[in-house]
């Protein structure tokens, strides 16, 4: 397995550098001046990115310095117990390389942006130490060569996510949102753990490469235990990647600072589930049922989340549901075994969704904390850079040629269409979702940047991110260049990121994920595929047209539609009441069970009851025995004498009874 390489890639540095940043800022940041905190916080991901780029240049096809996969054991053996053998091993292959470039690259841009965005916040050092900690765990997650090390990263990003969602921990809603994200992710992690146990039982190893080779020895093995493993892993993936049924934490996660939403809850962490499926595709390839489940989850989530996004008024919530919907696309891609297309969409989505979130953050920043789109409007002239960069993001996510989203979304839809009759259904759902996506994104665009300003004259006192409002409550203003530069870079990436093309991208990933078919608009495609692309673009354009009609030309039309079907509208606005349904069917019964069965019977009845009985018995016997200690000397003497007498009688009777003879004494003189 280990390939001999002349060069060393120093993979361990990639997570180690952000970890060093976390340690320095986490322990000393409170006392350090802001400039040093920023330098450390930005230097760590930049250095990490540099290591990744160096590795990328060395492994680039043609450079020939290093062969992939490159395996690096950086700390020897981790666990050795019976059959279980786990090493501290990192591996770099094409898939990991793409993930690393996205994570450290986009991560670094978001770090830069954060310097501007968080500059007025109190916990500046705390924020950056958490952000570096996140990068540490995320790079461990994608570099890990076995499930257990991956699980370390998997849990760690959950921790970092929890810390950052609850960054404004003195706000109850933020603290609750952090807890909700953590608990819901635990449910998914439970599936991941079960999957790992099953893998260990079946393969005797948690290493990806060893699993791959032992699977290759049994070509006839399908379904059965593999399906069970896959379903467990899919449960884990739905938790992390916010898919049905565990998506509910992601909309609430918007309580965190906006750059966090961009980095963790849009570009990187939430794609970990997609990465997990792509990484273990050799299992999924053997289990059509698991693939079908993934595809159905993906399509259902994509459509469902898109409908909710149609009526949300909080700019970040729209983007949150949009993220869930786009992650659904990636699952859909995985579900039709188009892993490369899913990873392609993962990459372009990281570009344009990070851009959208950061631009939304810039809008919120410019409005001193306002997130409600009903109170925006007419910001095109006041926030020109934000407007133009966000426009790039909106067009990219809508899937309009030639922006990045078009290429990746088209690749997924094309693969779905090729996937037989069920694939046609998936394709149609995907297409409708694309229409909805285009509509709600342009709705956001029009509501935010066009028309008349609907801003309140009175500053809102209940704003999401308190620091923004408290520190500079002056008029609408464009953000500083620190925030606009990352926007510009991401806008360029959103524009050009898709031009790498599915054939080259898929070809690059082929050693890991298997060969891909080539869609239409690229060399090697055919006219049917071209037709599909035209349909997709037309759908996106239709969405734009409808949004333009409703939110620019006839702004009273949405109200009329809303009034004509209040039931549907309320259902959507309340997000299908899924939180409430979960609350009634799962959370409340659990709370009642905990309170009355575990708490009432278990805690009060057994644990407290046992201590009560023990303590009571001791007290009672003490009450009785304490009367002996009267302090009266003569009573002590009496007990002493009585005790001595009892001992004497006992000894005498024992001596008489056992030996049967008196102690011999010479009673007479002689």
């Amino acid at each position, binding site marked *: 397995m280990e390939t001999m390489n002349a060069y060393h890639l120093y993979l361990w540095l990639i997570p180690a550098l952000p970890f060093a940043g976390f340690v320095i800022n986490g322990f000393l940041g409170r006392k350090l001046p802001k400039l040093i905190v920023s330098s450390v916080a930005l230097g760590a991901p930049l250095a990490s990115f540099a290591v990744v780029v160096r590795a990328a240049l060395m492994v680039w096809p043609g450079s020939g310095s290093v062969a992939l996969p490159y395996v690096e054991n950086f700390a020897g053996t981790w666990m050795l117990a019976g059959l279980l053998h786990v090493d501290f091993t990192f591996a770099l292959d094409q898939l990991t390389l793409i993930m690393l470039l996205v994570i450290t690259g986009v991560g670094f841009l978001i770090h830069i942006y954060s310097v501007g965005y968080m500059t007025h916040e109190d916990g500046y050092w705390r924020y950056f130490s958490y952000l570096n900690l996140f990068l540490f765990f995320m790079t461990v997650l994608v570099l890990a060569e076995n499930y257990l090390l991956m699980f370390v990263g998997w849990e760690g990003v959950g921790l970092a996510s929890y810390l950052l969602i609850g960054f404004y921990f003195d706000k109850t809603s933020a603290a609750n949102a952090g807890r909700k994200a953590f608990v819901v992710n635990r449910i998914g992690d439970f599936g991941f753990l079960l999957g790992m146990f099953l893998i260990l039982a079946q393969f005797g190893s948690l290493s990806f490469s060893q699993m791959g080779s032992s699977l290759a020895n049994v070509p006839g093995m399908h379904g059965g235990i593999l399906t069970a493993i896959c379903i467990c892993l899919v449960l884990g993936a739905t938790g992390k990647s916010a898919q049905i049924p565990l998506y509910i934490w992601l909309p609430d996660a918007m309580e965190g600072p906006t750059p966090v939403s961009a980095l963790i809850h849009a570009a990187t962490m939430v794609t970990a589930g997609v990465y997990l499926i792509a990484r273990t595709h050799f299992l999924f390839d053997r289990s059509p049922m698991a693939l079908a489940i993934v595809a159905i989850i993906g399509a259902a989530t994509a459509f469902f989340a898109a409908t909710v996004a149609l009526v949300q008024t909080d700019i970040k919530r729209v983007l949150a549901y949009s993220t869930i919907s786009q992650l659904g696309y990636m699952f859909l891609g995985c579900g039709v075994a188009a892993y490369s297309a899913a990873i392609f969409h993962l990459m372009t989505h990281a570009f344009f969704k990070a851009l959208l979130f950061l631009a939304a953050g810039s809008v919120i920043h410019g409005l001193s904390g306002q997130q409600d789109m009903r109170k925006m409007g007419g910001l095109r002239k006041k926030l020109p850079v934000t407007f133009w960069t966000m426009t790039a993001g909106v067009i990219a996510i809508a899937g309009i040629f030639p922006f990045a989203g078009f290429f990746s979304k088209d690749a997924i839809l094309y693969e779905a269409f090729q996937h037989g009759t069920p694939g046609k259904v998936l394709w149609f759902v995907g297409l409708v979702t694309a229409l909805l996506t285009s509509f709600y994104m342009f709705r956001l665009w029009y509501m935010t940047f066009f028309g008349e300003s609907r801003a309140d004259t009175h500053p809102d006192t209940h704003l999401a991110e308190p620091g923004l409002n408290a520190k500079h409550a002056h008029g609408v203003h464009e953000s500083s260049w620190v925030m606009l530069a990352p926007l510009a870079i991401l806008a360029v990436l959103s524009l050009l990121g898709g031009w790498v093309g599915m054939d080259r991208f898929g070809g690059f990933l082929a050693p890991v994920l298997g060969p891909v078919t080539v869609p239409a608009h690229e060399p090697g495609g055919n006219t049917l595929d071209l037709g599909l692309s035209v349909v997709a673009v037309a759908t996106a354009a239709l969405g734009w047209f409808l949004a333009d009609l409703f939110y620019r030309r006839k702004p009273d039309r949405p109200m009329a539609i809303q009034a004509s079907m209040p039931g549907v509208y309320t259902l959507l606005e309340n997000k299908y009441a899924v939180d409430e349904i979960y609350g009634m069917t799962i959370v409340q019964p659990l709370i009642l069970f905990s309170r009355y069965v575990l708490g009432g019977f278990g805690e009060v009845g057994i644990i407290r009851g046992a201590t009560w009985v023990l303590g009571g018995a001791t007290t009672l016997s003490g009450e009785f025995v304490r009367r002996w200690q009267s302090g009266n000397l003569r009573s002590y003497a009496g007990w002493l004498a009585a005790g001595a007498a009892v001992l004497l009688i006992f000894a005498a009777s024992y001596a008489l009874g056992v030996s049967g003879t008196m102690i011999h*004494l010479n009673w007479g003189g002689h």
Partner: protein
Amino acid sequence: MSFETIPGSWYLILSAALFCLGVVGFLIKRTLITVFMSIELMLNAVNLSFVTFAHEWHAVKGQIFVFFVMVVAAAEAAVGLAIIIAVYRSRSTLNVDQIDLMKL
């Protein structure tokens, strides 16, 4: 009747009688001095039985024990009398029924 003609059991009976006198005195007397003297009486009763057994069995161990007991009793007398004087100074009484502070 010479000393040798008196049987050893008589000494033991005397010892037991002295010991019981000591116990009864310890239990019924209220004055601390008398209680203290009762203790001395019990110690000496035991000494007597030690010497008797030593003589009967021609063993010297019992007599050595008696010396130990006498030494300890002397020390105990010194400490005990000092305590009695201290108690009398602070409480102006030697009635054991009134010296009962050491209780729960």
